[in-house]
């Protein structure tokens, strides 16, 4: 039964972390290259532009949900299952979500990288 709870937590962590990453990436894409912005109009305007992007706060909220589900997940399942499983699944889920929602061209190279890193994270935890 605890195993089931642990996997439910892993699913929620992965979903929340992916949502957060996609929202943050979307926000920063809207803000534009912060290096250029910093050069032309300074740090204050970079911060102001990030803080006036509503999806940025949704992203931070989703990240907070992922963090707290991780805390709860750790009380149900083992550290050696919950952390690598959710980290590894997040790499793969992000590749899918970035393709659908951010219209990134996830070619063979990106897929292979996401799968290799995901598999590597699992192997390191075994």
């Amino acid at each position, binding site marked *: 039964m605890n195993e089931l709870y642990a996997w439910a937590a892993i699913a929620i962590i992965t979903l929340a972390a992916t949502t957060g990453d996609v929202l943050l990436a979307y926000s920063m894409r809207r803000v534009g290259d912060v290096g250029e912005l910093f050069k032309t109009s300074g740090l204050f305007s970079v911060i*102001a532009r990030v803080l006036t992007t509503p999806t940025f706060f949704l992203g931070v909220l989703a990240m907070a949900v992922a963090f707290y589900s991780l805390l709860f997940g750790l009380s149900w399942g083992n550290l050696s299952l919950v952390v690598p499983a959710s980290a590894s699944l997040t790499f793969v889920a992000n590749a899918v979500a970035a393709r659908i929602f951010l219209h990134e061209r996830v070619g063979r190279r*990106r897929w292979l990288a996401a799968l*290799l890193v995901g598999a*590597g994270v699992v192997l390191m*935890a075994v």
Partner: protein
Amino acid sequence: MTFRKYLVLAGVTLFSTLGDSLLARGMKQLGGVSLHNFSGLLFAILNPWVAIGILLLLAFFASYMSALSWADLTYVLPATSLGYVLVALIARIFFHEEISLTRWLGIACIAAGVGIVAAGPSLTAARHHDHAQPVSQEAKP
């Protein structure tokens, strides 16, 4: 990709790895802090390891946001995952921990993934938001 952008990616990797490690060390020093004991969590900030760890994680967040402003999510995430390898190598070199064959395999997988994605383009997304109004203009009264 300029040299400065590679530096930002290295910053994302280093700040998150060091921040997590310092935070973990500080929390271990404090002993178990449970969800029933929120005052314990508040006082955790007074521990120097925890404080420095939080500062480093803030630096991580800033460099991560910066990277996402000029590179794809599917580029930034794999490209900054060397931290897992870094932790294992630090444990091997400074704490003389054994690294098993499966962990070496994992290190090889992650390193290969990082190399493969870093050798490709950093930005592929169609700039379909270009017609949208820039956010800064919306914010002006």
